């Protein structure tokens, strides 16, 4: 079986992991356009080459980041998300907007 090196638990069978999609910068949900938000939520780049992805080690509930080559399926590096996300992301409440009447 293919082996994935988990930063917390060490090498484990790939069947213990769940793919979580590309790591990408979140646009400001208050100020971005609907299109930008939809692109962030629904679309992926799907590029051929080295991508940075979220992965979950299901047995320990641990999310981490992996750099993987999508053509060769080689896992280049895995690391704890704290390398990228240094602090907690807070969401402020959106100021109330007027409802758009039909």
């Amino acid at each position, binding site marked *: *079986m293919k082996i994935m090196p988990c930063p*917390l*638990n060490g090498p*484990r*069978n790939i*069947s*213990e992991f769940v793919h979580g999609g590309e790591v990408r910068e979140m646009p400001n949900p208050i100020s971005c356009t609907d299109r930008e938000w939809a692109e962030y939520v629904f679309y992926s780049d799907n590029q051929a080459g080295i991508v940075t992805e979220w992965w979950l*080690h*299901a*047995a*320990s509930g*641990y999310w981490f980041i992996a750099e993987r080559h999508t053509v060769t399926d080689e896992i280049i590096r895995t690391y704890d998300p704290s390398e990228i996300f240094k602090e907690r992301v807070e969401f402020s409440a959106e100021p109330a907007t007027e409802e758009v009447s039909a």
Partner: protein
Amino acid sequence: MSAITPESFSKRSFVYRQLSAASFTEVAGAAQAADLKNGRNQAMQAGLLDLSVLPRTGFRGLNAAAHLQAAGLPVPAKPNQASVADSGELVLRLSQKEFWVLGNLADEGARIDSLNQQPLPDSNCYPLYCQDSHAWLTLTGAHLPAIMAKVCGVDLREEAFPLGSIAQTSAARINVVIVNHQINGLPCFTVLCDSAAAEYLWECLLDAMGEFGGEVIGSGALS
């Protein structure tokens, strides 16, 4: 005196239906399988013990380690390591910020109840309810790595998985936490699995133990 049965209590083990041959004692407000007409010799050979009724708790967050230290419990230095408290509790460090504490059979897990009554730090420490979410099965005896090798892909031999190690992995295709420890000098692998899968894993472990002469044991076989 009427015999104690799991049905005598509303709190029951997740595998109590598998333990019909046992005689029980009351532990922590539930029935603990104490005797299955085999003794410590069976535990030394290969035993499967259900400790699901024994209290356990957990804490998560940046201040979880400090909370355990304040309660006088040892904090393992790294994730996936376990420490034994002076009073016999097992402290598991499952990640940088997550800890589980498993009660000691000798005091029926009384220290866990007092730990749960202590106030939490003001921020960044959350309780985890692993009592109801996870079953606690303990394998004992001389063949632990060989038994687990039949259901688990991770190397659990002494060189790779020494005393005090934890492996969070998949066994018999369900997620488990495996802890290498000792009770009264007896080699033990404690296996914590999702409570809903407990009966399934129970059968899988018994099947894997078959060729090593494994049997279900009661808590009395530990002493």
